[in-house]
């Protein structure tokens, strides 16, 4: 009898001691990443997030509540960039991350504006903080937060949007007008909401600034021939061709531009031209194309001291230069989250919301602060003041940052046949 009591007591001690030691290893903070991993705007974010998590974990993790906790990443393929997939798939993916994978925070997507807007209500329902870092170019996202702060305060975005990009393009256009005397433009956009919005806004801005816009052509997804538009632009002596497309057929447009020896300087937002492998793929015919990379750091440049460190680390881990506009923003989002958690000293969603609103760090693409009302990252043309958008030009196979002037690595070159 006594021996059995002693043995029961001993085993109880063992169990208690065991659970205590098990609890001593901290639970990692789970970052959920709902992304369209089969597309550039999905895997760019995935790679950025994984690189950042690796770096932070190697340095010990996040300091919260007196202990250090590591980050762990759960990526789910939402397929939302595939044309025939319903948004409910993406929303199911987000819910899977929250309910099953027990994600504490969401970084990255959903990538498609439609899906991201629809996910905002879900985030409010489950009270999870989310930082959108790729895709979602529509200004409507942060406008919704501003209009209804109480409901949507968990939603943040640290990547630029159409409104800001148009402003920066306008500055670039002014430079061109001053330095080259250009004043004829032609606009070609894709038939999706963000591209059409961008095109309309650009048309308005240009006309206000004294440019003549030859025409604005809206091409539905799947158009394989742009000859009519290019010939029209040539007839109207357009000097700048403004593009906004992310469909694969934009490669056809760029090749036709080169083959037809169009005299207009092409610039804009072109998904196809963001990858370093695109140069080889187009046989060098995309020289002189100016591409807006939305956030600096998505191609090597000297915007801030961190930019080249990030590019080198990325190249070391993944074997090529950063590509796609969500890379630097996703990388920074993890660091911003770390800073916010450490500032709030808690992983509670409301506290982290306050933390994110208060942080102010010097990141890969400039000074990174969130606007307190709309939760959009504060943009600027000066890396010391805010987040910088980079516009690069393909020169001799390399992406050279030519804008903003305070962070430019090179000057704009013009095609020899356009003289």
């Amino acid at each position, binding site marked *: 009898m006594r021996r059995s009591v002693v043995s029961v007591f001993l085993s109880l001690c063992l169990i208690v001691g065991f659970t205590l030691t098990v609890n001593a290893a901290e639970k990692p903070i789970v970052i959920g990443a709902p992304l369209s991993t089969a597309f550039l705007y999905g895997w760019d974010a995935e790679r950025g997030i994984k690189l950042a998590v690796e770096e932070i974990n190697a340095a010990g993790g996040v300091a919260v509540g007196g202990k250090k906790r590591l980050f762990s990443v759960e990526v789910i*393929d939402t397929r939302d960039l595939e044309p025939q997939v*319903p948004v*409910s798939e993406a929303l199911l993916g987000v819910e899977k991350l929250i309910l099953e994978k027990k994600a504490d925070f969401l970084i990255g997507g959903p990538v498609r504006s*439609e899906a991201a*807007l*629809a996910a905002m209500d879900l985030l409010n329902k489950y009270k999870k903080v989310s930082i959108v870092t790729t895709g979602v170019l529509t200004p*409507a996202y942060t406008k*919704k937060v501003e209009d209804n702060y109480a409901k949507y305060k968990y939603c943040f975005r640290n990547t630029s949007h159409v409104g800001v990009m148009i402003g920066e393009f306008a500055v670039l256009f002014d430079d061109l007008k001053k330095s080259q005397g250009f004043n004829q433009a032609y606009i070609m956009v894709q038939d999706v*909401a963000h591209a059409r919005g961008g095109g309309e806004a650009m048309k308005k801005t240009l006309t206000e600034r004294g440019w003549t816009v030859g025409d604005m052509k809206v091409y539905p997804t799947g158009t394989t021939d742009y000859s009519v538009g290019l010939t029209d632009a040539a007839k109207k002596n357009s000097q700048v061709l403004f593009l906004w497309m992310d469909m694969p057929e934009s490669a056809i447009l760029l090749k036709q531009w080169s083959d037809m020896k169009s005299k207009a300087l092409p610039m804009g937002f072109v998904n196809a031209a963001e990858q370093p492998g695109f140069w080889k793929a187009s046989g060098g015919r995309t020289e002189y194309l100016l591409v807006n990379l939305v956030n600096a750091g998505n191609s090597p440049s000297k915007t801030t001291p961190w930019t080249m460190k990030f590019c080198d680390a990325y190249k070391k881990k993944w074997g090529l230069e950063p590509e796609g506009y969500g890379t630097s923003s996703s990388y920074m989002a993890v660091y911003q989250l770390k800073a916010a958690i450490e500032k709030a000293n808690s992983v509670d969603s409301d506290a982290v919301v306050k933390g994110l609103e208060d942080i102010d760090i010097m990141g890969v693409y400039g000074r990174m602060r969130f606007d307190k009302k709309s939760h959009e990252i504060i943009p600027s043309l000066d890396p010391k003041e805010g987040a910088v958008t980079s516009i690069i030009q393909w020169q001799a196979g390399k992406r050279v940052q030519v804008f903003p002037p305070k962070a430019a690595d090179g000057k704009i070159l013009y095609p020899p046949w356009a003289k």
Partner: protein
Amino acid sequence: MRRKERIDRGIKVRTEGIYAISSWREILYLVGPRALLILGLLALPLILELAPYWKRVINIMCVYAMLALAFDFLANYVGLVCLGGAFFIGAGGYFTAIFNVYVGLPFYLTIPLAGICGAVFCTVLLLPCLPLRGVYFAIVTLMYPLLATRVVEAFDILGGTNGITGVDAFPNAYLESYAIIFLVLFFLFAMRRFVNQDIGLVLRGVKDNDQSVRASGINVTYMKALAVFVAAFVGCLGGAYLAHLYMWAGLSLFALDFSIIPIAAVVIGGGGTLVGALIGTLILVPLSEFLRFFGTFRIVIYCAALTAFIVFKSEGLMVYAQRKYHQFERWAKV
């Protein structure tokens, strides 16, 4: 020489007509599978409290089940193969969003209203296609959701590519799950009754030989329109529910996925038995969720499964199961 012979089971024969209630065994034989289905479905949300994510999967599964029911009804009881189930979902979803956001009605009014309005809308638009037969009807209905997407996109109406957000959610999680389960079960049994009425017989006649139906003086196009209205009603209710579930209605309600999965479900589950549609979605949708781990590869897997079923076992699971349940096979001497 031997040949295989199929004979009704004794118990099946004993349950014909009034003798079905002659003893508990007969009653159980008839009621058993149906009770299993109903009780099983009703119990699912309770069982899945342990895994709340799967409750959401069941909701989506039921929406697909509504579509699959509509497809099965149209294809196997009326002879109209409608590859455009997404059109019904889109119409129902958009009508609900309009009623809820622009007019301000609460969800228990918008869903039935959207069902009826959506059904009328779909029937009117499909009216010109009804005289077509066979593969032509299939191709036209496949094109309808694609056209609808392009039209909404090109004319930028109804929220354009951003969609209409801010649709009310269901006030209660249980209401959410049980509403759709009740709808599915109700329509399953209602359709079964419907096809056994006189109207149902006429529709089945249209499927078998529409020239002779026409020769009997019945307006075939009117009958087909009625059938499309019923199927569209079921589909639009599903779409309306989906809009409230995700608090949003947009372009991707017309996605091709909504057309393909019900077809796959009917093929796998067994065409011609309305239950087969339900069983098919019960298998396909959770399977596709399990396989999410594989990313895009899961589409390959379930396309391969679909092809395998069409080619090798095109009768489907339910037909096979029913045959086994009601009949047995034996070798007989010739």
